[in-house]
C-alpha cells in the first residue's frame, strides 16, 4: 500500500473525526431518514419490490447490448443523437467538441453524478466554456470548489452560515443565513443562467429502451429549466440506467424517492423522448451513454450486482462509518458502500484501497438497498482482491498462514499469551492499561484478559447430566468464547442441559476464519473452513450451536462460498450450513424452550443490542427478546438498537480504531439513555466492545450474553 496515499487518508479521517458538527448533522439526518422511509413504504412490500428491481436490473445487464441497440434506434427515430462513450475521456471529448462546434460559451447543468464521475466541468472549463451548476446543492459545492459528499444531497456536509458566506461573495452583499432566504437568493441568481446558456446538461435516472426516452426524478425544478430553455440538451447517462419498458421505469420511479428521501414521489418526474420543440424550432438532443468501467463490472461475477444500483444514496444514510466521517472520507466520487465498489471499477482499485478497509461490515446498507445488492459481500471480495494485489501486510500474513492454519501452534500461542499478560492484568479479568506503545489499545475501552484456562481445556470437567437427550449438539465456540469468555460456554451447557440437550465440544475446531477472510487472506480462510467442517461433522451432531453470530455467518455463508467450486467439500459445507444455528434461535425455534425460564417477578431492567451479523446476517432479533422478557426481565428498547457497536474485529484494533471508538460512544449513549442496568446481546465480540466501553467510562451497566442471563435465571 502506498505510504503517501495512506498518510493523506489518515489525515482526512482525523479531520472528519474532529468535526462534531458534521457528525451530529449526519446522525440526525440518519435518524430522520429511517422514520421518513418507513412511512413512505407503509402498506408496500419492500422485499418484493426490491427483488423485482434486482431481477429486472440483472436482465438489463445480461441483455445490455440488445437494449442499447433498441434504445438507440428509438431515440434516433425521435430525432436524438446517441453516443456510447467507452471512457470518461470519450464522453467529455464528445460533449466539449459539441459545445465548441456550436459556439457555446456557457453551459447550464442540472445534477448529474455521471458528470462528476467524468470530471466534465473541468473538461469544459479547460475548453474555455463556463459551467453553471443549477441544483442548489451542486451550486453550493461549485462555489466552494468542493466535491459532493452525498449522491442525493451533495452539500449535506455544509451549514447555513457557510452557504451564506458563499452566496454573499456572489451577490456582493451580506446575505442572512436564513435558509428560506438563501434558497431565494439561489433562485434569483441562477435564473438568468438558463436563458444565457447555449447548452443544458442533465443526467437521467432511467433510459427506457422501449421508447428511446429518458426520465429524470427531481425536486427543485431546475432540471426542467435546463432541459427546456437552452437550444442544445445533452444527457449524460450511465449505461446501468437502461430499463427495458415503461413498466420497469415506473417501478424504479416508485421505489427511488421513497428510499432516497422518504418521499412518495419527487416534485417532478420528467419523461423526455426525442428532440422536442424549443423556441422557434426543435431542440438538439444528444444522449451520451457512459460505459467507463461498467462493462468490466458486468463481467465480474462477484461484483456485478453493483450495476443494479439506482443511486438512491440510502447505503450512506444508514452507514455508521459514513455518519462518523462523511462522504469526503468514506467515498471518492461515489460515496459509501456503493461508492467503494464503483470507485474500484470507475476510478481504479488504487483509489478504492482505503475505502475497502474503512467498511466495518455491519450490513446496515444491505438491509436498505432497494436493488437488493449484497454490498458488504462485494466489499469483502474487493478486500480479497486487494489482499492479493497489494498484500495484507507481512505481520498479518505470517500470523494467518503459519500460525492460524496450524491449530495446535495457534492455540498453544494463545495459552502462552495468557501467561505473558499476567503482569498487566494483576489477576483482574480486564486489561485497563498496557505498557508503552501498546497503551493506545486500551485508551477508550478496557480489554478482556485471555482466560487462564480456555473452554476446551476445562470441557472434560464440566458435568453434563442429561438422560435420554432430546438432541446431541456440537458447540462451535469461536476464539472469543473459547479463550476469552469460557464462562459463556459453561452457561451454555447449563442452559441446554436443563432443556434436555447434550452438548459436545469437538476439540479439532479452529478459528472460523473471519479475521483472515476479512483481511483479504482467502487461502487461510479456505484451510480453516475445511478443518472446521471435518471437526464439526465428525460426531454427527443434530445441530451445531454457536454463541457468536459472526461464526454462524462464517459457517453458514462463507464456508459455502469458499468451497462452492470444490466437489469434495461443497457438499459437506452445505451439510454443516444446514445444521448451524445460534443459541437463542435454537432455544426458541427448535426447543420451544421459553416456558422453562418463566418468572413472575421482575428481575432486572434490560436493554438489548442487536448484533449486526445476528440481525442482518441470520435474521434473528425477536428470539432473544422473547427469552429475556420470558425470563422475567423488563426489556426496554434503546434507540438504534441494531446500529453497529463499532467492534468489527481487527477494525477496532488495527485498521480503524479511531472510527470504532466514535461508533462505540454512540452506542454507550444509547444504552445509558434507557436507564437499564444491563445490556444483553448475543455476540462475544459485541460484549468485548460494549463492556470495554462501559467499563472504561465507569458506567454501572453490565453487558451480558443472553445465554448468561438465562443461566442466571436458573440459579
Amino acid at each position, binding site marked *: 500500500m502506498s505510504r503517501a496515499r495512506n498518510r493523506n487518508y489518515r489525515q482526512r479521517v482525523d479531520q472528519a473525526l474532529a468535526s462534531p458538527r458534521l457528525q451530529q448533522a449526519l446522525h440526525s439526518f440518519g435518524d430522520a431518514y429511517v422514520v421518513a422511509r418507513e412511512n413512505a413504504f407503509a402498506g408496500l412490500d419492500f422485499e418484493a419490490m426490491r427483488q423485482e428491481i434486482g431481477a429486472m436490473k440483472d436482465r438489463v445487464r445480461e441483455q445490455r447490448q440488445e437494449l442499447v441497440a433498441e434504445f438507440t434506434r428509438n431515440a434516433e427515430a425521435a430525432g436524438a443523437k446517441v453516443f456510447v462513450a467507452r471512457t470518461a475521456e470519450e464522453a467529455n471529448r464528445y460533449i466539449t467538441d459539441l459545445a465548441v462546434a456550436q459556439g457555446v460559451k456557457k453551459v447550464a447543468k442540472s445534477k448529474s453524478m455521471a458528470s462528476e464521475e467524468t470530471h466534465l466541468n473541468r473538461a469544459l472549463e479547460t475548453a474555455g466554456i463556463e459551467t453553471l451548476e443549477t441544483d*442548489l446543492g451542486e451550486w*453550493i459545492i461549485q462555489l466552494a470548489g468542493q466535491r459532493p459528499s452525498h449522491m442525493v444531497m451533495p452539500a449535506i456536509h455544509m*451549514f447555513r452560515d457557510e452557504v451564506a458566506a458563499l452566496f454573499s461573495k456572489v451577490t456582493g452583499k451580506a446575505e442572512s443565513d436564513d*435558509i428560506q432566504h438563501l434558497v431565494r437568493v439561489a433562485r434569483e441568481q441562477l435564473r438568468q443562467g438558463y436563458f444565457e446558456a447555449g447548452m443544458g446538461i442533465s443526467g437521467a435516472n432511467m433510459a427506457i429502451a422501449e421508447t428511446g426516452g429518458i426520465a429524470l426524478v427531481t425536486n427543485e425544478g431546475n432540471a426542467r429549466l435546463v432541459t427546456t430553455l437552452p437550444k442544445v440538451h445533452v444527457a449524460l447517462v450511465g449505461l446501468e440506467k437502461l430499463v427495458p419498458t415503461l413498466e420497469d421505469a415506473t417501478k424504479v420511479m416508485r421505489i427511488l424517492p421513497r428510499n432516497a428521501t422518504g418521499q412518495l414521489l419527487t416534485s*417532478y*418526474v420528467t*419523461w423526455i423522448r426525442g428532440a422536442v420543440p424549443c423556441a422557434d424550432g426543435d431542440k438538439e438532443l444528444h444522449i451520451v451513454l457512459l460505459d467507463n468501467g461498467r462493462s468490466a463490472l458486468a463481467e465480474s461475477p462477484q461484483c456485478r450486482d453493483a450495476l443494479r444500483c439506482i443511486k438512491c444514496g440510502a447505503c450512506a444514510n444508514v452507514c455508521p462509518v459514513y455518519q462518523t466521517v462523511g462522504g469526503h472520507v468514506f467515498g471518492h466520487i461515489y460515496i459509501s458502500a456503493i461508492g467503494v465498489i464503483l470507485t474500484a471499477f470507475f476510478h481504479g482499485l488504487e483509489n478504492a484501497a482505503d475505502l475497502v478497509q474503512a467498511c466495518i461490515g455491519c450490513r446496515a446498507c444491505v438491509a436498505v438497498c432497494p436493488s437488493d445488492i449484497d454490498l458488504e459481500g462485494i466489499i469483502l471480495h474487493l478486500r480479497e482482491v486487494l489482499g492479493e494485489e497489494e498484500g495484507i501486510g507481512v505481520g498479518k500474513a505470517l500470523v494467518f498462514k503459519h500460525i492460524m492454519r496450524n491449530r495446535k501452534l495457534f492455540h498453544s500461542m494463545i495459552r502462552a499469551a495468557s501467561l505473558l499478560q499476567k503482569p498487566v492484568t494483576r489477576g483482574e479479568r480486564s486489561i485497563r492499561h498496557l505498557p508503552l506503545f501498546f497503551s493506545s489499545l486500551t485508551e477508550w475501552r478496557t480489554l478482556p484478559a485471555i482466560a487462564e484456562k480456555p473452554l476446551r481445556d476445562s470441557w472434560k470437567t464440566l458435568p453434563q447430566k442429561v438422560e435420554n437427550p432430546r438432541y446431541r449438539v456440537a458447540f462451535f465456540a469461536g476464539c472469543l468464547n473459547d479463550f476469552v469468555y469460557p464462562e459463556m460456554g459453561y452457561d451454555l451447557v447449563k442452559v441446554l442441559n436443563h432443556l434436555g440437550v447434550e452438548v459436545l465440544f469437538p476439540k479439532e475446531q479452529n478459528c472460523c476464519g473471519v479475521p483472515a477472510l476479512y483481511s483479504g487472506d482467502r487461502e487461510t480462510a479456505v484451510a480453516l473452513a475445511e478443518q472446521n467442517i471435518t471437526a464439526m461433522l465428525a460426531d454427527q451432531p443434530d445441530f451445531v450451536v454457536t454463541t457468536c453470530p459472526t461464526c454462524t455467518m462464517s459457517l453458514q455463508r462463507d464456508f459455502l462460498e469458499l468451497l462452492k467450486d470444490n466437489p469434495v467439500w461443497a457438499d459437506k459445507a452445505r451439510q454443516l450450513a444446514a445444521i448451524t444455528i445460534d443459541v437463542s434461535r435454537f432455544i426458541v425455534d427448535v426447543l420451544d424452550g421459553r416456558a422453562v425460564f418463566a418468572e413472575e417477578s421482575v428481575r432486572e431492567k434490560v436493554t438489548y443490542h442487536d448484533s449486526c451479523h445476528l440481525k442482518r446476517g441470520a435474521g434473528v432479533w425477536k428470539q432473544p427478546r422473547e427469552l429475556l422478557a420470558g425470563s422475567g426481565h423488563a426489556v426496554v428498547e434503546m434507540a438504534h438498537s441494531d446500529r453497529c457497536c463499532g467492534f468489527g474485529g481487527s477494525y477496532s484494533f488495527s485498521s480503524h480504531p479511531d472510527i470504532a471508538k466514535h461508533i462505540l460512544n454512540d452506542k454507550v449513549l444509547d444504552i445509558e439513555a434507557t436507564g437499564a442496568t444491563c445490556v444483553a446481546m448475543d455476540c462475544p465480540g459485541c460484549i468485548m466492545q460494549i463492556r470495554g466501553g462501559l467499563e472504561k467510562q465507569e458506567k454501572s451497566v453490565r453487558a451480558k450474553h443472553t445465554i448468561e442471563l438465562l443461566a442466571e435465571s436458573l440459579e
Partner: protein
Amino acid sequence: MLKRFTEALSKVGGQAAEVATVGEAAAYIAGHVNGTVLLPSQPSLERIALAAELEAAGVKVVRESWREHAAAANAGVTGVNFALADTGTLVLESTAEALRLATTLPEVHFALLDPGKLLADSLAAIPYLRGFHERAPRNYLAYITGPSRTADIERVLTIGAHGPRQLHVLLMPGLSTDFYEL
C-alpha cells in the same frame, strides 16, 4: 379516490379548491395572483373560454411571445391530462414549449383538473403513458407532485426552489373526460 388525491396533494404542499363554473375558476385565480398570467392554448381551457373570463376578472393574460414574458410572469395556468390519487400527482403532456414555460418559470401554477380524471397510482398510468408515446413521435411528459422543493441546505425542507413556489389545483367537474387532452 378524490379524497386520497386531495390529501396526498396537501401533504406535498399543494392546495386544492373546488370550482363549479369558469367564473369561479377565474375569480379564484384573480384572487391569488399578483401579476401577469401565462395561459398556453389548451383544448379544455379554450372550450370554457377561460382567457376571456380571466380578463373580465381583471387578470392580465399572456397568450404569445412566451419566452419574452415567461420570466416576468407571476403565474401559469394549465389544464391537466389526469392525476394520480396515491401521490397527489398531476400528469401534463408538456411537449409544447409554452406549457413548460408556464409551469417552470412563474412563482405560481394554477392547474384545472376534472375530478373524474383520476387514476389510483402510477402503475395504472402506464397504459396512458404508452398511449402518449404512440400518439406522438416526440414528447415531454411531466409528473408534477406539489410545488418545487429542496432540502439541500442542512436538510431543511424548503418549499419553492427553482420551479413554482405554489401549486393550486382547481377541481372543476365537467371540464374534460379525455385523458389525452389538456
